[in-house]
């Protein structure tokens, strides 16, 4: 057994087992070497949203935002997935939420995003905590310069024109400032804080 110190070896040298030269069969002599081929793949699928998200998406067509409350923890989730992750239980109650809330935190994207050529950088994406919700809801902050966005800023939804509404979260074009005083946040560690039932 060799007791070579590993640090004594050239770290980039090919392992002995892989250092033998590769010889091609004669039939392949003179063939053009191929390093890689690009084969775009695509998968189309039908999405079945389930009960909670179906209710949520249908309500979107009426400019209403539906969340769901967990009977065990009191937490309200939006978009609702039908389950409460902490309790490990089904949510028990549908809750209609206001289309107002505050900015929990935000990002300013300064690179283009492939699927949204309509979004011209820089733009601000934010987690919005809707009034009455326990978790942040992802959206764009619009109608002001991204640099003016603040954590705690009060915002309201900007909806598509009524004739363009569909069963989609895309009905909310973004969130604009209400002009109300900022939420006072003292506990920065707790993102998605709950006011009343926080354990």
């Amino acid at each position, binding site marked *: 057994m060799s007791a070579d110190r*590993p640090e004594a070896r050239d770290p*980039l040298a090919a392992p002995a087992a892989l250092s033998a030269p590769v010889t091609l069969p004669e039939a392949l002599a003179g063939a053009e070497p191929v390093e890689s081929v690009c084969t775009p793949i695509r998968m189309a699928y039908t999405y079945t949203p389930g009960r909670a998200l179906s209710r949520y*998406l249908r309500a979107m067509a009426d400019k209403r935002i539906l969340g769901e409350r967990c009977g065990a923890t009191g937490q309200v989730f939006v978009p609702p997935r039908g389950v409460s992750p902490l309790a490990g239980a089904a949510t028990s109650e549908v809750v209609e939420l206001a289309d107002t809330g505050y900015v929990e935190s935000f*990002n*300013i*994207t300064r690179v283009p995003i492939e*699927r949204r050529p309509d979004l011209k950088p820089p733009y601000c994406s*934010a987690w919005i905590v809707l009034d009455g919700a326990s978790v942040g809801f992802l959206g764009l902050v619009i109608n002001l310069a991204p640099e003016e966005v603040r*954590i705690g800023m009060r915002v309201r939804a900007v909806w598509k024109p009524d004739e363009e509404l569909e069963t989609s*979260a895309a009905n909310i074009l973004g969130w604009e400032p209400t002009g109300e005083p900022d939420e006072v946040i003292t506990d920065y560690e707790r993102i998605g804080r709950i006011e009343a039932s926080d354990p």
Partner: protein
Amino acid sequence: MASERTAVIGVGQTKYAAARRDVSMAGLLREAAYRALEMANKTWSDIDAVIIGKAPDFFEGVMMPEVYLAEALGAVGKPIMRVHTAGSVGGSTGCVAASMVQSRVHRCVLTIGWEKQSESNAMWALSLPQPFATSVNAGAGGYFSPIIRRYMMMTDAPELIGCMVAHKDRRQALLNPYAHLHQHDLTFEQVVDSPMLWDPIRYSETCPSSDGACAIVLVDEAGGDRHPGPVAWVHGTAMRSESNSYGGRNMVSPAASEQCADDVFAQAGIVDRRAEIDAVEMYVPFSWYEPMWLESLGFAAVGEGWRMVESGATELDGGDLPVNCSGGVLSSNPIGASGMIRFAEAALQVMGAAGEHQVDGARRAVGHAYGGGAQYFAMWIVGSDKP
């Protein structure tokens, strides 16, 4: 019955690069695996089982690659097991591999993680459209930027702490021949002046996209005792996960992260984490995660992590708790391997085999990985002495 003492006797890494066009996915794995076997003085016939980890299949568009890779993995006719925990997978895979020996199911296990990002598009694979939410986030940076912003606001950290981390890791990468990024002349000012991508995250504060693989050979106590070369003993392993969205979640320092750290330090019998650990390889894909994890892992009090960075405490050159001496994820990021590289580099430190980026006299080191929406965690502690 106590678990079997378990030792790392071999580590193998590929050269990490934006595109390893000279090798196929199989060739990439063989390069790492054979280097690990050479260091371990083992051949494929000594390996009882192979434990693998990589990021989700749709990254490269190759479904269940373990099936076609069985031969390159030396796994034909042997038990093979694949671990899935998003970006933390390399770490979780190391923990699962160790458990195979600790539980006495196998005596000698090879574990390997990899990614060939040049054959994929991870940024957009991570931004799949969802019909119930608006598609506004651009990859992982867009997701983590608000959490970092929250940390900065919570701790009043100076704006350039992240740039200090990035500059440190890129300089330390120059000492690691396997690192992807070798930016010899990168100045601190260039890091600061690099473009904002996901404000407050700059271009130079983000990880690259890399091809690469990393392998580790683990053996039981008798195998560790017999090994003629350096050995790293496993002193503890821990994994935790949590939902990425619930009310009151601390996204800066998730409960799963703190509990994972508490578990692994307790297993290793460590009380004063900063004093008793000699080197840390932590998962820092965006620079600000260094101070954030320093706090979450209990190396610094809440709000004090950035002060450790600012004071130089995490530098290889003169710091008391060197972090990411290898250059870290900020210098090499083959996603499925990135966690395992942290575990492997921690082992190399206590084996005294880290070469130019060796921490003098390192006896105990931490390997750490996280993934998903900062919701999957894996850690191990390795030591030069038997636990």
